[in-house]
């Protein structure tokens, strides 16, 4: 074979090889039937929980293996950073664990790729054991099933620095309750501190638009709608705050971690958080802890925002009965309740929030935060649409930043964000 032809043939093989990986995904392995004997080796993956809760999960697994002697659970834990990337690599490589800790936005692409077991079919009998809203949080518009067991819920109050409020001439015992109060107090704080203390550290996210009462998606769930008059109104208010330095100048590049640090150092007067943060304040900023004020999330809808964690079963598991049984075991009322006693989270199982642990005061701040959060969770909403992907979040954030910098009007910015999000939604 002449040299040039040989080179050509080698190049053709090199080109064809990767193309062969570009076919349609096979639906190999796995069964939807969870009714068989609970046995076999399964893998359970959690999301950054080993460092703090190793004994809890080891006991949990031991309990399951004791109940089902034929089953064996291998526990793996992944760090918080890059968790979606780890999941996508596993999913693409066919090595997704049998039972996976997920959030609703992570379930959506996995379900659409056929990798999440439909629990409405495989585990319908367990549905009534969970709060209806929590069960529904893993339903994906455009599909008909439910793709993860709801696990723990979380919500949190708004923390504020009483000393900074006092310095700005604001009543430290009367924190803002409405958006109008919040905007007025923030402007006063900026004015009195000569722009050195901001009240807010983050630009508005999709949750903030939801909490402000902006419709996020159309009724059919086929397109986004947060560019309506209400959305423009919220962004216009934030622009006013940004111009007055009532919104931190570094908010455009802030992350939840960086804004948390700014709150710790007294550069920012208010910050959302959870009961977990109280321990952090006590340990890392005792001065702030002495002056900490706690108030409810501000909302125009009457519904606080909640975060939902779920436990998904890989639809391609070779041990569906064991995987479903274990996912339910992790998320049943008894185990969620015992997990909630170890860390400031809230069970998603029906009736658990009526437990005295979530209703009876003992005079400590931690309990006060826990009781208030449990109360607000009863009608809380997970505002983030499950189809709102990371790329969409980035697009919204960038457009919001342009509006705050005055490069676009709030209306133009939100129109552009909706256009991009709709395009990404159509692309699937």
């Amino acid at each position: 074979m002449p040299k040039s032809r040989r080179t050509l043939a080698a190049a053709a093989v090199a080109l064809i090889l990767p193309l062969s990986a570009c076919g349609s995904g096979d639906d190999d392995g796995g069964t939807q039937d969870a009714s068989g004997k609970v046995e076999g080796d399964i893998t359970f993956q959690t999301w950054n929980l080993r460092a703090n809760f190793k004994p809890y999960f080891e006991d949990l697994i031991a309990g399951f293996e004791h109940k089902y002697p034929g089953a064996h659970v291998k526990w793996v834990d992944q760090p918080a950073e890059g968790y979606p990337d780890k999941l996508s690599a596993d999913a693409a490589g066919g090595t997704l664990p049998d039972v996976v800790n997920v959030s609703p936005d992570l379930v959506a692409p996995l379900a659409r790729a056929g990798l999440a077991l439909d629990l409405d079919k495989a585990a319908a009998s367990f549905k009534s054991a969970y709060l209806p809203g929590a069960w529904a949080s893993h339903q994906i518009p455009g599909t008909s099933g439910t793709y993860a067991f709801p696990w723990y819920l979380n919500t949190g109050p708004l923390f504020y620095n009483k000393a900074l409020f006092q310095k700005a001439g604001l009543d430290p015992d009367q924190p803002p309750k409405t958006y109008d109060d919040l905007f007025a107090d923030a402007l006063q704080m900026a004015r009195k501190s000569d722009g050195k203390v901001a009240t807010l550290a983050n630009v508005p996210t999709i949750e903030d638009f939801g909490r402000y009462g902006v419709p996020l998606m159309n009724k059919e769930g086929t397109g986004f709608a947060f560019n309506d008059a209400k959305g423009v109104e919220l962004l216009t208010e934030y622009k006013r705050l940004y111009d007055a330095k009532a919104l931190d100048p570094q908010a455009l590049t802030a992350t939840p971690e960086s804004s948390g640090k700014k709150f710790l150092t007294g550069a920012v007067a208010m910050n959302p958080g959870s009961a977990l943060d109280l321990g952090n304040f006590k340990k890392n900023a005792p001065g702030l802890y002495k002056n900490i004020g706690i108030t409810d999330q501000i909302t125009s809808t009457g519904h606080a925002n909640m975060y939902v964690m779920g436990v998904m079963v890989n639809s391609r598991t070779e041990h569906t009965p064991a995987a479903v049984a274990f996912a339910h075991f992790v998320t049943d009322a008894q185990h969620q309740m015992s997990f909630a006693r170890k860390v400031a989270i809230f069970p998603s199982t029906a009736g658990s929030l009526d437990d005295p642990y979530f209703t009876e005061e003992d005079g400590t701040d931690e309990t006060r935060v826990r009781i208030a959060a449990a109360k607000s969770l009863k009608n809380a909403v997970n505002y983030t649409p499950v189809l709102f992907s990371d790329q969409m979040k980035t697009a919204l954030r960038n457009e919001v930043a342009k509006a705050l910098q005055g490069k676009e009007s709030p209306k133009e910015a939100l129109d552009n964000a909706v256009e991009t999000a709709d395009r990404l939604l159509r692309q699937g």
Partner: protein
Amino acid sequence: MATPLRIKRQRLFSPWLFAAPGLLVTGTFVLYPFVSTLVNSLTDRRTLLPGHFVGLANFRELLHDDMFWTGLRNSSLYVLGVVPALVVLPLLLALLVQKNIPGITFFRSAFYTPVVASIVVVGLIWVWLLDERGLVNSLLETVGIGRVGFLSDQWLLLLSAMAVTVWKGLGYYMIIYLAALANVPRELHEAAAVDGAGPVRRFLSVTVPAVRSTMVLVAALSSVAAFKVFSEVYLMAGPSGGPAGEDTTLVMLVQRTGTGLTGRVGYASALSVVVFAVTVVLMLLVLRADRREET
């Protein structure tokens, strides 16, 4: 005793056997991913969904993507800002530490330390220093200049990231220059000095011509590295790429577009192909400039 035919056959295969381990590694970790990226760039492949052939659609989309042009602008500006500094400053630094005087090893090591420091650690330290309430701003405020938004202004952020890249790269290129300077004949300097050339004249007429090929090498290496910048900008501007994403570089855009469960692998591959093409052009330009100088 081996027959001539056997020897001939062995001569044919032996070189390939020696090269096999290297070829295998290169083929698996360089060539296959490269070809795979080329192929993916012609598909609409997603992270979890197999793609279909879409021809040049991804490349056409690039042309209408504002973020692509922002990334291309920032990566190009990075080359323009960083490369001249990394060609000249390490040479001056190498001249400073070239002489064997007592204690010079300490300075050589000190200048080299940023090279071995983790980029994440370095990035975080600079973020703390340049923060609105960081050390640099406190000093500026003390001397009456007032706070500067190093991490909130789009251009200052890019400049700050460039400064970190230059600071971190100085030691590495200094070592390369030290090796080159060691080969410059001392007689040339002595002859120039006898002819009455001062230090600046000797630098321009003796040192620079003697290390010119090393300067080309440094320019080539640093321009490719600068065009592919990711860590410094990602750490200082945040995952969103600075205010409104205006500090996003091309490689950051590849990462943001192609990763995650909803990643657009096809589109990100097209972006990667563009990055590859531009770096090849950069190398060719530098080498061509060198050849023109030689003739």
